[in-house]
């Protein structure tokens, strides 16, 4: 298929791997490269990219998995909203099996009779509200910048249609805030982090926000960034870009995914987001703690569509399962195999932590593709 197959070509992959070896193998240094995005983590495991890299290149898995970074307390809120009489909670499928506190999940709430519907698109949630005028339809909005513009358009569509039974439980978070937290937040440093030499920038987040927001990290922290597509060839080429930058002492933002990412990103999408949303003063992230101005909320003029203001549902912070290493894994400080629950009590079938549930979580990637590999070593 066009724009897919050509980026999975084995010969090109081997050539890129050889180029990475010849540039990195004799430099006498280590390269700790964080792929921010969970989609990259999965591609790296699925295509066995680590096996193509020399031993001195280490891929550190970042927090770019929206399901994983959502704190349990926010999921609990969604479960409580779903259980209200007359409510239909519309959610992306990824959220349904994530464990909340006290053994709860949306899936269990659904089994207990809560009306929870899986939707593929925000527009499906708006359609649900139109089709059920006597019910309150709440869309459980989560995700980074990629997923935010569709939520913004859904709210504007609902406003235009004059719907009074549609609202959004907003949990949209911001990529640059998370990267900054990993690099500098004292709270995060206390929790324990790793030294990162460079970043593989997310593909589809960058389609929306552009490459410009990363320039700060390159300039201020002297960390090279390579924005990378999701296919194996894209990732190898981006790793090569980072190795070259580090070898040459450069710290720039390079854009490997030029076929879809521009410096300014998708202006139309950014405008939709800024019409509807504003910065939240504070948001809690699983693994990273409280990060100021790291998430979005609905502007006052859309207050009628804000489930948090409409339903007065308090946020009650909760501790996750003690032995679960998700928080440290999300900071890149630990690997899934460092967790004593991994592969034993916690598997994709019976997940205890969000990193095992989500199709973008690092634990799920390790379990699905990487577990046998480590065992073999």
């Amino acid at each position, binding site marked *: *298929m*066009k*724009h*897919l197959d*050509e980026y999975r070509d084995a010969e*090109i992959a*081997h*050539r*890129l*791997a*050889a*180029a990475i*070896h*010849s*540039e990195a193998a004799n430099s006498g240094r280590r390269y700790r490269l964080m792929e921010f*995005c*969970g*989609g990259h983590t999965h591609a790296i495991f699925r295509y066995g990219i680590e096996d193509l890299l020399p031993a001195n290149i280490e891929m550190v898995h970042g927090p770019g*998995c*929206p*399901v994983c970074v959502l704190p349990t307390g926010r999921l609990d809120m969604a479960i409580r909203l779903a259980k209200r009489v007359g409510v239909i909670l519309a959610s*992306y*499928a*990824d959220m349904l099996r994530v464990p909340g506190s006290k053994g709860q999940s949306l899936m269990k709430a659904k089994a207990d009779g809560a009306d929870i519907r899986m939707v*593929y*698109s*925000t*527009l*499906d949630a708006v359609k649900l509200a139109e089709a059920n005028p006597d019910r309150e339809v709440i869309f459980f909005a*989560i*995700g*980074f910048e*990629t*997923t935010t*513009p*569709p939520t913004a*358009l859904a709210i504007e569509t609902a406003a235009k249609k004059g719907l009074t039974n549609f609202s959004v439980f907003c949990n949209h978070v911001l990529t640059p805030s998370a990267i900054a937290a990993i690099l500098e937040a004292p709270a995060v440093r206390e929790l324990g982090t790793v030294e990162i030499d460079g970043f593989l920038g997310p*593909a*589809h987040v960058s*389609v*929306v926000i552009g490459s410009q927001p990363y320039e700060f990290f390159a300039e201020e922290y002297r960390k090279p960034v390579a924005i990378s597509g*999701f296919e194996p*060839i894209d990732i190898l*080429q981006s790793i*090569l870009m980072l190795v070259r930058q580090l070898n040459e002492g450069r710290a720039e933002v390079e854009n*490997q995914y*030029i*076929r*879809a*990412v521009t410096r300014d990103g*998708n202006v*139309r*999408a950014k405008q*939709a987001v800024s019409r509807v949303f504003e910065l939240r003063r504070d948001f809690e992230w699983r693994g990273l703690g409280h990060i100021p101005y790291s998430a979005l909320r609905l502007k006052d003029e859309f207050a009628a569509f804000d489930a948090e203001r409409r339903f007065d549902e308090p946020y009650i912070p909760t501790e996750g399962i003690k032995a679960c290493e998700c928080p440290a894994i999300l900071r890149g400080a630990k690997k899934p195999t460092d967790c004593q629950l991994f592969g034993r009590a916690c598997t994709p079938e019976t997940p205890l932590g969000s990193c095992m549930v989500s*199709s*973008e979580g690092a634990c799920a990637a390790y379990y699905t593709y990487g577990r046998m590999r480590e065992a073999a070593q």
Partner: protein
Amino acid sequence: MCHALPVKIIALTGPDTAKVSLGGIVKEISVALIDDPKIGDHVVLHVGYALAKIDEAEAERTLALLAAEGGEALAEFAAAEAPP
């Protein structure tokens, strides 16, 4: 949820909607987030919305770069790996 795929616009069905195809599977999506959608455009599809057009010229430039990349290194690598 974060998954996005390159799909091709095969019909414009409304002011903000289009039909797209990926390997023969046809789906209606929103094109409200992109400028000037046209039949034949490849777009990045995410949760039912086209997020961006894929720039064909840049796609070709990436592939041309890839075709050139690492040729010499591979030859060296192959030579080094070859049994004596």
